[in-house]
């Protein structure tokens, strides 16, 4: 019972001490007031300020409405030296451009040796391990006498080629029987649809398939591809005619979903001259290559579906009319 009294007394005492020392109940300090420094001046100085007139225009003089025209001595006009400066237009100084040879192809890998190795002598094969030339062994000079042999007759020969095998083939044969004449089908007769369908289906079914095929690309995957190419299809530098030209470009893709540059080809076009078609194709090719540098992110399990892509570039909505 007294324990509680002790605890309560100690607690209250601690609270009172904290309030007195810590300033829990004191109001927070207010921010320091703004102070403006002033300078005290004397009454004489104040009178001196008041004596200065305000800067106000009280004496306004109207200006003349329009100044009289003044004839100025203009400097001599900077006329061009007739022949040298402007003769450019008369006599073209720049002749027709001279076509230049094509640039050199990129150099191959650097050679290891600055000069080519001398050609090996004839009939000498390079070996992994160099070998010295063999020298005649003087001890091997002694000739070992061979065993005496009996005299042999030369192989028998004939004056004409005679087959060695048994004569199985007949010397004569009957003429082959001529092909029996077939009854010509009646041109009015239609082929049997059942057999035709079966033949076609079997023919297609037996055609070798390149690889197994997964499900086709989803609409979202196709849209992602389309958007990827669109980001790089810049028609801003195309001629007006090229922006009225539709081109169909085929491209083969690697499994890494990167376009194979050498496979990009024009497969069709609509509208525009040959030059315009070429410009439109170049822009399309740049788009395919540029945005395909890192791959188009297509699902590899569906490779058979996007191994070949035909893209139709239609600038109708982009063209400058």
């Amino acid at each position, binding site marked *: 019972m007294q324990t509680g009294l002790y605890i309560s007394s100690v607690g209250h005492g601690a609270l009172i001490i904290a309030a007195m020392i810590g300033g829990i109940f004191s109001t927070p300090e207010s921010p320091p007031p703004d102070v403006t420094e002033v300078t005290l001046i004397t009454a004489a100085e104040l009178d001196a300020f008041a004596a200065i007139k305000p800067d106000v225009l009280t004496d306004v003089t109207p200006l003349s409405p329009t100044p009289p025209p003044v004839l100025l001595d203009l400097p001599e006009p900077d006329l061009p030296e007739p022949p040298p400066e402007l003769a450019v237009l008369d006599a073209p100084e720049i002749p027709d451009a001279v076509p*230049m040879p094509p640039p050199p192809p990129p150099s191959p890998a650097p050679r290891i040796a600055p000069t080519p190795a001398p050609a090996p002598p004839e009939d000498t094969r390079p070996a992994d391990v160099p070998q010295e030339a063999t020298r005649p062994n003087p001890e091997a000079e002694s000739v070992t006498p061979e065993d005496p042999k009996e005299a042999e007759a030369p192989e028998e020969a004939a004056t004409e080629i005679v087959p060695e095998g048994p004569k199985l083939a007949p010397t004569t044969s009957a003429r082959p029987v001529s092909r029996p004449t077939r009854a010509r089908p009646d041109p009015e007769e239609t082929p049997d649809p059942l057999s035709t369908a079966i033949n076609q289906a079997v023919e297609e079914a037996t055609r070798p398939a390149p690889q197994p095929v997964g499900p086709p690309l989803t609409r979202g995957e196709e849209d992602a591809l389309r958007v990827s190419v669109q980001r790089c299809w810049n028609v801003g530098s195309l001629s007006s005619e090229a922006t009225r030209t539709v081109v169909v470009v085929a491209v083969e893709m690697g499994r890494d979903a990167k376009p194979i540059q050498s496979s990009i080809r024009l497969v069709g076009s609509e509208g525009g001259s040959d030059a315009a078609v070429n410009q439109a194709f170049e822009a399309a090719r740049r788009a395919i290559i540029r945005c395909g540098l890192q791959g188009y992110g297509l699902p590899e399990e569906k490779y058979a579906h996007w191994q070949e892509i035909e893209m139709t570039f239609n600038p109708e909505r982009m063209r400058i009319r």
Partner: protein
Amino acid sequence: MTRLFPVIRLLAIGFVALGLSAPANAQSPGPLRIEITEGVIEPMPVAVPDFIAETPAAARFARDIAEVVRNDLVGSGLFRAIPSNAFIGQISSFNSPVQYSDWKTINAQALVTGSVSVASDGKLVVKFRLFDVFSEAPLGQGLQFAATQSSWRRMGHKVADAVYSRITGESGYFDSRVVFVSESGPKNARVKRLSIMDYDGANVQYLTDGSAIVLAPRFSPNGDRVLYTSYATGFPQVYVLDVGRVTQTALGAGENEMTFAPRFGPDGRTVVYSSSTGGNTDIFRRPVGGGTPVRLTNTPAIETAPSFSPDGNRIVFESDRSGTQQLYIMSANGGSAQRISRGEGRYGTPVWSPRGDLIAFTKQNQGRFHIGVMRVDGTEERLLTSSFLDEGPSWSPNGRVIMFTRETAGASGEASLYSVDISGRNLRRVPTPGGGSDPAWSPLLP
């Protein structure tokens, strides 16, 4: 039984088709076909490193010519020059093979390399090649130009024209000039001089001394002469100026006849112009070398600003015969005219495109001036600009860009030259010393 036989046959066909052809289709799906209809319209990134100086005397030209090429391409709005500090690869020799990977990394789609040398006869020799970086192949043949050293800017323009042409499929317009009216002095006492400059504002030269007001200069088809209107006699009168010799002759006019708004025909031997006598203005045609004028219009309305079609068979002009200023097309021999402008507002200063497919014009509507283009039949009208005062369009040689006059409002307003792509993009001010108005673009220089 005989009735059942066809049914059995059909079932058999269906079974075979389903059973055999289905797996076949699954194993040869054919190419994936997609259609691309949305692209981007943005400047093509191109790298133009400073050209290689093959002789010490060519060092300055090598740097400056490359700068001209860069400025031309960027100024067209179709290209973006990659800054040289972004280059990974360096072109140390004109004939060294290109490391395409270095240029792919900085996304350069085209690469222009070149070299400059000074030949023993003092001529400047410029070579260049253009590469399609992502195709890893040259784009066309390399070219070589030779000219006097004073023509170094033209050689830069030539290179830029070739690059522009190979990439866009259109001819360029950089190696060309503009004749215009240079304006100086206060607005109420403005001195106007006939001037000529490179298309980009360089090499300005004055053709008249400013003693008389001059207006509306127009180049001949091959750029050797300029037609313009001068008030030298107090009356507006058409003059022909030989650009090479800087000599001028009056076209000839009757007593009290005012002639103005001249323009060459495509053959360079015919000129159409407006003539005003007795308060009536009509359009006439006559040989440049002199001859009897042929009246092409005959109405009490004001008819002016004629412009030939590129084939010379038709003329577009402005007339207020309907009560307001509108555009009409008639035969080059005159006769009935067909109105082609049908929008709101007033139309004037029509100019036929060098391609023949568009007509540029000035339009005033609701207190604003516009430069616009429309088809020859008046359809597909598009306004390219809008300001306090835009007027006087002139086509670039390739029909892709229009240069015009823009004047600012107020007493201190000044006329300047501007250019805009026919798409309405790439509006740029053409630098001129002081003010400038009435630009006329030359054909491509030879």
